[in-house]
């Protein structure tokens, strides 16, 4: 069964303390992995799409990387405004062109000043 698992479930960091969030998946024939940020009371906000192992993308203090079985979201020198829930998602196997995504349960990041 296709699965997406994120760890840790919650992460508390001090401002400036770098760390990584993990997203592991079991979907074969990956056709993209998406990272989103969700603030409380808001909809998920798109961050990155990764398509192939070895690919990396960066945006401000965030860098996403992809291997054949997992993706990492590295947060360098985080600030309190980086506090949010980070979600990853992959298209379900056999979903063709339907855009049917499986989401992980998310990692809730809290950055303290």
């Amino acid at each position, binding site marked *: 069964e296709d699965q997406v698992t994120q760890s840790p479930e919650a992460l508390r960091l001090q401002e400036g303390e770098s760390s990584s969030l993990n997203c592991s998946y079991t979907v074969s024939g990956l*056709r*993209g992995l*998406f990272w*989103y940020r*969700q603030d409380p*009371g*808001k*909809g*998920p*906000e*798109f961050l990155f*799409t990764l398509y192939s192992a070895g690919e990396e993308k960066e945006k401000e203090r965030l860098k996403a990387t992809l291997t054949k079985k997992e993706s990492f979201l590295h947060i360098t020198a985080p600030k309190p405004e980086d506090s949010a*829930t980070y*979600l990853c*998602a992959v*298209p379900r196997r056999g979903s063709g*062109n*339907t*855009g*049917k*995504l499986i*989401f992980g*349960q*998310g990692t809730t990041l809290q950055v303290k000043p």
Partner: protein
Amino acid sequence: DTAVSQTPKYLVTQMGNDKSIKCEQNLGHDTMYWYKQDSKKFLKIMFSYNNKELIINETVPNRFSPKSPDKAHLNLHINSLELGDSAVYFCASSQGVDEQFFGPGTRLTVL
């Protein structure tokens, strides 16, 4: 200039009532979705429409009926609301299978 908008933002209603949630996107996308996010923040797809045609219909009670009058709109009608329907419902849109853009959500509370 909101990309994906939903109304209402909050919906509080009694069990057994019928309610609708509306969604509109101005991104020119051809595919729209409805997701349900439960209390544990787990996002699960319910429906997807591509060019007004239903392409994903997950195992959702038939009390839920989506309707797409045109490519820019996807509404969700729920009949005979139950306590377990309480959740946050998100609309999203994409161009084909590219990244999906989400609306602000509708928090439904069934009393």
